[in-house]
């Protein structure tokens, strides 16, 4: 008798727990679904809109049933300097990231190893300064030395954005390399430079990828340096925006396609590095 009662009570409590688990799961799914709509739907909407021709948009911009067309994309590539801007973005982005690696990696290594606190904090503060305060003096100097509207001029100005970020991120990655490996190399007759090049650098290569991508995104996102310092020949992707804001009412599909094209390069890099992206994004901000 007693054991029967205990069994029944047990069963009841197990059912209750199961029911609570199901309720929890349903509530979770609903909340997640709602938030997913808020944060991801705009991107879906953008892609859908970009695949509609003007007639379909005029009929009903919000319907999801239509015959998709790539005409908005071909129009952008044909009628606007999009490819030219993409090329400039690539030159300026890769140029500034490459320069930053050359200059920044040795610095980050030593700052991390010797725990040069003051240098590190200074680098961090430079990262926090709003870039607009640099631009006016740079604009004036560039006018004097003929660097306005040149790729090299933009690359140099982007070093202000990229170099501090890169040094800061790489300090963290170098710190994770165990010091013993280098001590061992010294005993084997390795120089400091050799230890840096042959031991430390190979061990931080995943960090190099993340840092490179985040630095590239930083350079590609910049609007204000490009707005002031570039010209028709050197303008980068973000400047594409202004071709579409002028004709705002006329061409919703075109704007959507442009937004999609601007989103894609960074998104591809993000998917490629998604394993480290979260880590990299927050490392620069908080740790």
């Amino acid at each position, binding site marked *: 008798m007693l054991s029967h009662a205990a069994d029944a009570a047990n069963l009841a409590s197990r059912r209750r727990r199961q029911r609570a688990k199901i309720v929890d799961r349903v509530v979770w799914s609903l909340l997640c679904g709602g938030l*997913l709509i808020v*944060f991801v739907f705009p991107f879906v909407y953008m892609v859908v809109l970009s695949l509609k021709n003007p007639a379909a948009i005029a009929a009903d911009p919000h319907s999801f049933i239509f015959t998709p067309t790539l005409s908005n994309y071909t129009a952008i590539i044909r009628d606007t300097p999009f490819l030219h801007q993409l090329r400039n973005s690539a030159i300026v982005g890769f140029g500034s990231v490459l320069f930053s690696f050359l200059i920044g990696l*040795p610095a980050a290594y030593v700052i991390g190893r010797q725990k040069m606190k003051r240098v590190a904090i200074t680098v961090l503060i430079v990262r926090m300064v709003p870039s607009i305060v640099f631009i006016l003096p740079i604009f004036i100097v560039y006018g004097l030395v003929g660097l306005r509207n040149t790729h090299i001029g933009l690359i140099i100005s982007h070093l202000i954005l990229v170099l501090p970020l890169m040094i800061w991120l790489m300090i963290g990655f170098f710190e994770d390399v165990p010091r013993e490996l280098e001590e061992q190399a010294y005993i084997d007759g390795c120089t400091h430079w050799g230890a840096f090049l042959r031991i430390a650098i190979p061990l931080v290569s995943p960090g190099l990828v993340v840092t490179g991508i985040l630095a590239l995104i930083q350079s590609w996102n910049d609007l204000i340096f490009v707005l002031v310092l570039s010209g028709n020949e050197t303008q980068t992707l973000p400047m594409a925006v202004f071709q579409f804001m002028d004709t705002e009412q006329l061409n919703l599909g075109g704007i959507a396609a442009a937004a999609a094209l601007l989103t894609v390069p960074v998104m591809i890099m993000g998917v490629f590095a998604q394993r480290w992206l979260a880590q990299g994004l927050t490392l620069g901000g*908080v740790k």
Partner: protein
Amino acid sequence: MIEASPRQDRASDNGRKYSLTRDRRIFAWLMVAPAVLILSALVLYPLVSLLVMSLRDYGTGGNTIDFDWVGLKWYAMLTSDHRFVRGLLRSIQYSLGSVSGALVLGLGLAMLLNRNYRGIGVLRVLFILPYTTMMVAIALLWNIMLNPANGIMNYFLQAIGLPASLWLADTRTVLPTLIMIQIWRSTPFAMLIALAGLRSMPLDSFEAADIDGASPLQKFRYLTLPMLRSALATAALFMLIDTLKQFPLIYVLTGGGPLRASETLYIYGYNLTFRFFDIGYGSAALVALLLLVLTVSVIWLRVRERSWL
């Protein structure tokens, strides 16, 4: 001779150690020197130059050669410039509004995603999208959705029986709308920070709370929040700096309009220097922006916890 030898040994030993550390120090400075030199040229020169320009009167029209020294005249003028004061307040309003929104949403999102369901990694990547997307693309995206005539946001509002809004085209709604977009943009960042904090929490205190019969609300109030406090504080200050520096979003969507209703300090500084070429006065406004951001940065540095940095 025999007595002296140990001392000699020690001396030469010391000598070798000394040369090793000196060697290391030279190596260290050689490694840091290029970065330090280039950064100071790129950063110090413009900063000093900006400070100097803010003490000069160039007249209007973008002339950078003839000037008079005017001391702190521009700074005195700033304090009585309504446009400047309003821009400053607007910047603070924009930052505080978007950061508090992003913190609450980000924390909620992190708690939702802190589960070991299959495929949750995909969800996390999807939720990060607004933070990794190019700012100007986000501006275009919201420009389409907020279009008062045929944007989907008004379509949604009307679908649930609310009146359509002018969003960015109305002086009363423009700032809240921009804050809404900024919250949308910054929430994933807050989520990443909160998620990292949640994952590093000791599980045993939660188990103890379970045994004591604590409700989920109590656990959140007395365990989760206190343990996340420092992570959230650093994230908040970082986002505060980030939002004070927001330029592309506002510049592309409104340019500070309509009727200057969204003109933040950053936008005002840009307009003064690059639209009206008012170099001296504009420089002073930019120095004010710099001081504001640096103040928050210093607080941020104080709050941050890190082993040696």
